[in-house]
């Protein structure tokens, strides 16, 4: 509370104890990664992540999905939960869209690429080269996946 003047205390009306309360975070935009999505905005996301919470909190939510499917196929799998179109403003179909992080069940994190990123991030010139090679260089997501050597299923 010394460094966060937006934290306040309130008295719990049940116990009478004082509690510190935190104002809700309302992101302007949330970008979440899902497995399946349909053209109406229904998506499934990994249940172990907090993507549904993010989608319900943000003013706008963009869902990047591994596959575009028919609405009646947007069914949660073993590790997935459903997020209703109510919370989704755009669906972007980008298989491999979580790279270089993992999409558990589909592909693992790319440890080699992440190490290269960490090394490049230590130095301005190296980071510039990283951005040119992987971010500004590739014309589209497909070219990005080619550039990083992503093995498509």
């Amino acid at each position, binding site marked *: 509370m010394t460094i966060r003047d937006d934290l306040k205390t309130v008295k719990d009306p049940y116990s009478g104890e004082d509690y510190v309360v935190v104002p809700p975070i309302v992101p302007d935009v949330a970008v979440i990664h899902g497995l399946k999505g349909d053209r109406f905005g229904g998506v499934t996301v990994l249940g*172990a992540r907090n993507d549904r919470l993010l989608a319900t909190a943000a003013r706008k939510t963009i869902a990047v999905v591994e596959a575009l499917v028919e609405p009646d196929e947007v069914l949660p799998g073993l590790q997935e939960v459903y997020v209703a179109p109510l919370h989704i403003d755009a669906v972007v179909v980008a298989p491999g869209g979580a790279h270089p992080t993992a999409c558990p069940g589909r592909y693992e994190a790319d440890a080699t690429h992440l190490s290269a990123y960490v090394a490049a991030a230590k130095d301005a010139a190296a980071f510039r080269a990283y951005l040119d090679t992987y971010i500004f260089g590739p014309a589209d997501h497909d070219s990005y996946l080619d550039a990083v050597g992503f093995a498509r299923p």
Partner: protein
Amino acid sequence: MEDKPVHPYERMIGAIALLLNDGEFAATGTLSPIPAAGCLLAQHTHAPHLAPMIYGDPANRISEGLHEFFGFAQRGGIDVFFLSGIQIDQRGSINLSVIGDYGKPKLRLPGGAGSAMLYSLSRRTILFTMTHTKKLFVPKVDFVNATAFDGDVRTPWRRGGLSHVVTPLGVMKFDREKKRLALDYVFTGGTVAQVVDNTGFDLDVAGREIPVVDPLDGESLRVLRGPVLDKLRTIYPLVCRMVWG
């Protein structure tokens, strides 16, 4: 594989397993492969009813996200939890936010997430670290994310606190009377002097006989490299490849 020398992380896993009791509900959070393995080893050896909740275990799915897990902790469901920090001090406080001054940090980190709450709400907490250096074990953390015990202000939700700290060199025990950490034992292959030299605070070793112990006997090592590792690979594949190949 049985002939491969014992990795310090394997001794940590053995030490964590020994700290867990049968029938406890132990839970591990994100990025916690060593505690996860410790729970699994305990479950496969002396604590068959340990019932670990390993966050991210595909075979032990929760309905949704960390907030469900936090709610469960608030309700009092967790007996043992595991935390870590970029800095840990003698009082057992952990720092996960900044190195240096908060307003002008040398290093900014993701932050404490649920650590403050879980440190209070779990019946006991074991800290684990992947290194043992003076940079990590400091006299006083630069920023306190979570505390091992209540200070002058009593928090009504405090249910437990620090029990032990497990590092690649050995185990520290939290002294509840003195409210500070003290060296408990050193792993085989190391020395008390080595631990003292790499810790930035006093470990209360003066006048005490500190044992050198291997927390991992031959049978535990076999179980760890067998069924425990098989299971761990389904949760932490990258870490497992780095440590065990």
